């Protein structure tokens, strides 16, 4: 089976104060259609840059990105803007527009498509129901909790029926309960809408809970990839091992601190 999202030899570097920092050093990623694919790594490993190269929020220095048959890296600015409407993205800081209500936030991408007012109304109502926020339709983002904000972010990202959803640390700013709820929501839209999801995170639990496949990024290259189970049962890479160790360490501590209360 051929992959749906594909990157070929992706390179990206940033210039800071005369230094050239190579962030991506030849990334080859393959994600199947309908998959929930995790990308994990420590801060600064390049995972965020990678996902931002997929919709070209960052322009890669060299290499190619494909989604389906489309070569994203070959699109003109105008074509890219149109294509981006089919690539949803959600963020760690939600990035909702504070000047707009929940309704207006979700309607914004639909207005870009020049949809009719009536259709916009209908579509927004559908999306609000999907993410379970119907009663907050006319609230401003300032009135919402973190979890609710991310729901709006998801609804907004889904407005134009994308077939890809990029999640850039979408749950990292949320409390555990909201994280779980958002992850369940992501799983639901993956199942119901057949969305391919790429999920960037540094939380091992998130990957374990949600993803089918995972890539471990270390210092700008993919050091390991495969099924989540295999990777974390038997990690070969340094990052994978550290992740597992930390996760076990936490479990131990939880046990001890749980005992104290008795």
């Amino acid at each position: 089976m051929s992959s749906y999202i594909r990157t070929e030899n992706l390179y990206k570097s940033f210039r800071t104060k005369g230094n050239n920092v190579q962030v991506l050093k030849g990334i080859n990623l393959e994600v199947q259609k309908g998959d929930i694919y995790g990308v994990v790594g420590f801060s600064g490993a390049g995972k965020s840059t990678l996902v931002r190269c997929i919709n070209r929020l960052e322009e890669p220095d060299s290499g190619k990105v494909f989604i389906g048959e489309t070569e994203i890296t070959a699109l003109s600015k105008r074509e890219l803007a149109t294509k981006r409407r089919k690539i949803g993205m959600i963020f760690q800081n939600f990035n909702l527009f504070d000047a707009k209500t929940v309704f207006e936030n979700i309607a914004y991408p639909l207005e870009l498509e020049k949809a009719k007012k009536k259709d916009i109304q209908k579509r927004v109502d559908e999306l609000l129901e999907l993410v379970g926020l119907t009663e907050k339709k006319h609230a401003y983002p300032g009135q919402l909790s973190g979890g609710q904000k991310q729901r709006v972010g998801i609804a907004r990202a889904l407005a134009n029926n994308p077939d890809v959803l990029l999640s850039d640390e979408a749950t990292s700013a949320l409390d555990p309960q909201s994280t779980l709820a958002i992850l369940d929501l992501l799983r639901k839209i993956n199942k119901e809408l057949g969305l391919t999801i790429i999920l960037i995170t540094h939380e091992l639990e998130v990957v374990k809970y949600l993803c089918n496949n995972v890539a471990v990024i270390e210092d700008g290259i993919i050091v390991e990839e495969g099924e989540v189970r295999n990777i974390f049962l038997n990690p070969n890479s340094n990052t994978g091992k550290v992740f597992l160790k930390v996760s076990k360490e936490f479990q131990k501590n939880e046990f001890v601190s749980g005992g104290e209360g008795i």
Partner: protein
Amino acid sequence: MSLRRYSLWEVVKHAFSKEVWDVLWPAIGDTLYMVIFTAVITLVLGIMLGIVLAVTGKEGITPVSWLHRGLGTIINCLRSLPQIIMIIITLPLARALLGKAYGVNACIIALAASCTPMFARLIEGALLELEKGKIEAAKSMGSTNLKIIFGIMLPEVIPAMIRAFTVALIAIISMTALAGNFGAGGVGDIAVRFGFNRFQHDMLIATVFSLIVMVQVVQTIGDVCSKLILKKRHLI
């Protein structure tokens, strides 16, 4: 009434007499006329220039280095002129455009030329403070630059823009007083001609009072407006 002849209390009392205010009211009218016209020009040009500065900068949504640098240099040049020099420099321009180099209309050119660059910088600052993430979110939805500017950036920073405009408006009011020296009339003119040249200290006190009231009103309205918007958005 001069303080040389009368006691302070009597002068202050006389500052609020009909005699004084009969002279002052028309001058306040002139000042308001200058302030309002200058404010409109400053508002429109300043927002336009501020947007250009913000979006063409290195971190902007469409970097155009030569335009950013060129415009920035022009604005810096205009800002480095003290207002009194700006008035002198624009007098020939006023003569060419309006036929005479004195009067309220002539001074509006100088006032706008002096305040627009300042306001443009304030707007640029407000736009640059907007979280990059919001612009990225709009980009990731396939928004065009024009829609990002007018649909996202401007509405998001309106409270900051109102505060910036308040600062600009107060600068304009204080500058009209200066323009009074160059035949523009207004409150400043009264203060100089009566208060300074003729030692009519009641006049001076009345002009100071009216200027304070004007600035207070502007500041209060600005504060209330930006606060109302922030409250509506539940950001405070």
